[in-house]
């Protein structure tokens, strides 16, 4: 069997296996739509807030209107007491409350100061932060208004008033994901993980279905089989990766900083090491339904340990070190740095070399595994 024939046989074997096609092609396409689906609206807006207005003055009403005008807040009701507001929140009709104390306007005009209370449902962090941001900015605005009126009343010049109110500007700007959108945050890391997991499952099912049976894989040397399998999976995934990193990133508005050459150069060891890992893992299985289960179980831990959801510094060291043998872990962080955060090639060089090292390691393991599998006697049909 020549090498080209072997390649052809591998490709046919992959396409003939319904489960591999379902996982590799179906899974990748299906997830490219399904996973980002909940996040398409990017930022949580118009969170429902109830107001407890004990003051009922012109200023408190203005404050409520200003809060309602914030894109983050939607005032759904005004209720008489905090207990009633609690009822609204526990029935999930509202997620936050604003309490305006009695004598709010009067105290401010008398120069006594007043305290506004905000509450947000911290069972949902994004809702809480949206409510807190919206209400605080409305409150600060009201505060500045009152201050300005006070200063003007004391005969200060309006220009100076403006200056003393905003003596220092704090210019806080998000970078790398300027819209603070949820899709650009989740998609880059998640998509690499999907490629990684489906590739491992595909290679796993292919191997598990072949060992101990008779077929073209018995007619070639382990080295030829591994190299052919690596090539075929890498070529298939080169296409799928370009769909993910190219079209999907564009479609979901993910910021892209690196050049095509850099991204391809970075993806090369990722695909190679993942394919080698998949072949090595496949030697552990003989039942076709097992690879999917094992890899499905480890998906969530890999996602969280890769360090873009939860800071690496807070993950126990042992977990971080153990996770370094998973190709997706250096790949996700490296790719985020290279492609989303615009770091130079030298910055991601350690991750790149790590993936090459993993490729070497898994190739060796795959060689040992495949050799053992091919030398064990065949199962009688």
């Amino acid at each position, binding site marked *: 069997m020549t090498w080209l024939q072997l390649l052809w046989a591998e490709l046919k074997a992959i396409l003939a296996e319904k489960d591999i096609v379902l996982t590799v092609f179906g899974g990748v396409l299906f997830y490219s739509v399904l996973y980002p689906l909940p996040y398409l609206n990017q930022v949580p807006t118009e969170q429902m807030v109830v107001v407890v207005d004990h003051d009922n003055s012109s200023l408190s009403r203005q404050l409520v209107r200003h809060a309602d005008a914030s894109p983050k807040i939607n005032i759904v009701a005004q209720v008489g007491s905090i207990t009633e507001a609690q009822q609204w929140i526990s029935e999930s009709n509202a997620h936050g409350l604003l309490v305006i104390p009695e004598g709010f306007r009067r105290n401010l005009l008398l120069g006594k100061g007043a305290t506004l209370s905000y509450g947000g449902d911290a069972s949902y962090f994004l809702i809480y932060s949206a409510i807190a941001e919206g209400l605080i900015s409305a409150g600060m605005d*009201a505060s500045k208004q009152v201050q300005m009126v006070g200063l003007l009343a004391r005969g200060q010049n309006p220009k100076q008033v403006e200056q003393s109110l905003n003596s220092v500007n704090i210019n806080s700007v998000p970078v790398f994901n300027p819209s603070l959108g949820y899709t650009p945050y989740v998609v880059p890391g998640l998509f690499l993980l999907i490629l990684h997991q489906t590739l491992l499952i595909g290679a796993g099912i292919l191997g598990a279905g072949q060992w101990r049976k008779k077929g073209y894989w018995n007619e070639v040397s382990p080295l030829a089989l591994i190299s052919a399998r690596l090539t075929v999976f890498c070529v298939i995934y080169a296409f799928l990766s370009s769909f993910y990193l190219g079209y999907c990133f564009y479609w979901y508005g993910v910021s892209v900083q690196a050049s095509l050459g850099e991204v391809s150069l970075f993806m090369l060891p990722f695909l190679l090491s993942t394919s080698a890992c998949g072949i090595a893992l496949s030697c552990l299985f003989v039942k076709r*339904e097992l690879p999917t289960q094992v890899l499905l179980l480890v998906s969530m*831990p890999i996602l969280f340990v890769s360090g873009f959801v939860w800071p690496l510094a807070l993950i126990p060291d042992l977990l971080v070190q153990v996770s370094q043998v998973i190709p997706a872990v250096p790949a996700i962080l490296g790719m985020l740095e290279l492609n989303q955060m615009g770091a130079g090639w030298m910055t991601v060089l350690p991750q790149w070399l790590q993936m090459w090292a993993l490729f070497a390691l898994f190739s060796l393991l795959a060689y040992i595994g495949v050799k053992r599998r091919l030398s064990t006697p065949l199962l009688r049909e």
Partner: protein
Amino acid sequence: MRALLNQELKCLWNSPWQLALVTYIPLVSILCLWWLFSAGLPRQLPVAVVDQDNSQLTRALTRNLTANSVIKPIAFSQLSDAEAAMKKAEVYAVVVFPHQFKKSLLTSGSPTIDIRYNSQFLLVGKLLSSQLQLSLGAGLMEVAGLKQLLNGVNSASVAVNLSPVTSQTTALFNRNNNYVGFLVPPVLIALLQLLSMMVFVNSLNESLIKKKDSYLIADNFWSQVGCKVLLYTPIMLLHGCFILVLLYGYLGLPIAGSMSLLVTALALMLLAIWPLVILVFLVMREPASNISFGSALFAPAFAFMGVTFPVNDMPLLAQWWRLIMPSSHYIDSHISVISYGADTQQVMLQFLSYWYFLAVAVMAWGLYKILFNKQQKVNGSKSDKLFFKHKSSAKPSNNNNPGAYL
């Protein structure tokens, strides 16, 4: 029935992987995922501080940043170095005090403090942005107070003059914004759902009868299913209870309602998972495909729970898809019991949303009827109906050799 149950137990005993799935794998993965987030509160996140002014004021502001538990300021002398560190994700934000910051402030200019935070790591970035502004704001307030005193303002009214409206922000139900209380329960519930799906699919796969290249459904399919439900619901429920005890018993996270309601909700979630799995099983009818399809269906459940990203802001399609997942029905009850202390009546009302799984069960039953009739027709001609009846108990589809696994 007892014979079937015995047979089920024997199957379980003879399958090392299935045995692992119902015993130590859930425990290990639950503990691992909790361990990952066990830090709970984000603390000491590195922030680059570029002080181009180097005045007493900017140093005081930097000390203010140090005093914040979330922030760990790291001094950089060059902006370009700070930028490079940011791109390497070594720091999550950069604070720049401009040249002649203090002078400009004293001569009533309005200088600008620049903050850049990494929003590619959204949760960390947002947290840092608000904490940095809070710390700097508090530090600047002192300066402004000094200025007022110099202008001859009565010391009693300085505070009011500075901020006439003070605000008190309360994080309801999760006072200290603890990530363990926020993220770990939905993550573990998603995990439990995946595990339950696998356990049930594996067990259903045992009931398939292999005949040459195709698989056939057993005659007594539904009584087998009944046995599996009787066997696996309590086992998986036990793992669910382990999650609840770990989080709300051992770790002592606040819980407002009663634990028994949550256990009921968990049981209902499991009972809702089974019909979905049966439907998938009947549609695919091939061991590996059952698992692949089930995984494809259940793997993204976490994203759709609506804890990380609010349900109201999801597109309509996502909200519909969300209802297909039993875990999202459960998490609603979970949060209302944990946070709002919902009583039995409220939770029972929420349970009504499970009606749709009854429809799934009916669909599965209908599909079974169709398949079975077809199967009978094909095989009726060969008149080997007896074969099915006995085959199901005699030979499950896999080989019983334990060495065959892994």
